[in-house]
């Protein structure tokens, strides 16, 4: 399996540990509420539920002990009936998300690939300031004598002396800029609340983004996000062990 191209190998996971995959675009300047509403209306037939929420920044003046709500704007969200497929748009950004069970890149990218040109037009072809592709993986590790050997699953980890073994919990973040491609990555891992009896859990969160001269045309954005996905897969494959591969294949 190791000799296969990363892209092909990545397709083989029958039960990928992806909790959520997100494709997000941030606008260089806010779009109007009217346009956001229309973008949501444009895609409404593709989803079964819709919801509207008000978003606000809160400004606190500690001297006068006053809090005020500023920059209130509206977040329009569409979702499938199982809440696995999401489209959300607000003044500053829009995103497509797929929650578990993840059904593969083809399905996810086909969905946002078909919907992106439609909403970009309705939004007035806004200038894009940032493109993000984020995959939040959750890896459940069976407890062995009350210990979770996460090193059996994750190759990226904190090196420390035995004096800290066994650690109760951990958290790390790595940031890297790939100057050749102009892509940046924010990779995080942490122990998270366990959900299954007899298991511990940790996250492996890979966020690939482009915030320097990102394209603003739908066709170019989709090409860019393809490159981002290749990098994301390389990082995932480099970060997990064969044992993890077996577990999710």
């Amino acid at each position, binding site marked *: 399996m190791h000799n296969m191209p990363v892209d092909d190998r990545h397709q083989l996971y029958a039960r990928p540990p992806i909790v959520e995959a997100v494709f997000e675009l941030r606008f260089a300047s806010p779009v109007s509420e009217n346009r956001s509403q229309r973008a949501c209306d444009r895609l409404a037939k593709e989803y079964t539920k819709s919801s509207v*929420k008000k978003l606000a920044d809160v400004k606190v003046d500690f001297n006068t002990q006053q809090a005020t709500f500023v920059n209130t704007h509206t977040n329009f969200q569409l979702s499938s009936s199982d809440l*696995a497929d999401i489209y959300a748009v607000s003044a500053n950004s829009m*995103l497509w998300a797929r929650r578990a069970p993840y059904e593969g890149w083809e399905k996810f990218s086909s969905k946002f690939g078909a919907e992106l040109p439609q909403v970009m037009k309705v939004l007035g072809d806004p200038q894009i300031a940032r493109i*993000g592709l984020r995959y939040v993986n959750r890896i459940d590790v069976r407890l062995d004598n009350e210990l979770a050997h996460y090193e059996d699953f994750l190759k990226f980890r904190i090196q420390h002396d035995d004096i800290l073994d066994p650690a109760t919990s951990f958290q790390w973040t790595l940031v890297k800029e790939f100057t050749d491609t102009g892509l940046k990555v924010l990779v995080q891992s*942490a122990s998270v609340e366990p959900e299954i*009896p007899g298991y511990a859990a940790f996250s492996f969160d890979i966020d690939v983004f482009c915030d320097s001269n990102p394209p603003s045309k739908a066709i170019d954005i989709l090409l860019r996000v393809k490159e981002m996905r290749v990098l994301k897969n390389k990082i995932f494959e480099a970060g997990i062990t064969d044992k993890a591969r077996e577990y999710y294949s």
Partner: protein
Amino acid sequence: MQALPIFEPSEVTKPERVQALRFEKTSDSVPVLEFPRVRKEGFSPWQNYFIDQPLKDRSVEEQLFAALADAKIWTSKIAMHLDPDTRKRLFSQLDVLHDAEEWDARDKVVNLESYKSLVRAIIHHSIDCRPSLALMPSGNLLAQWKDNQAILTVEFLTGNRARWLVQNHTADGPERVSGTSPLERLRIVLAPYSAERWFDAR
């Protein structure tokens, strides 16, 4: 290595909370670096906040949607351990139990902790057979498995516990046995009554 630059991560729809430290940290005079995700719950001056109407003031449809959303979103955390058909069936049963047209104002929406207990039991005990579900007045889920005249009824409680009732017809007459157990022990305590006849597909 450079100091960690401040990059805003891409948005996720439901950020997972990092496991809370079991110990309070010693205070420092000027925090140098604090990961946003380990901040204490409560106010943060640089975050966006959703302004929602209190749940009780929303329409019945919205209250039901919110209750189901919590359950369905939580399921995404463990969906890779759940058979896709089981997940589909659970969601469809939840939808039926929360049908707005049948909803009475006195009914309570599903208790998320009870739902979690049910799903954890399915995963932990590899339960293949799908139960029928009902909603208790408390919001707890009541699951029932039938095998001919032998009936197992389980109320899934908060805190990974289950209250169970076995109804059986023996050669000596009808029998009823009940108990409350930690979720992990469900198969063990039901073993004398042949738990596999309810849990395992043949």
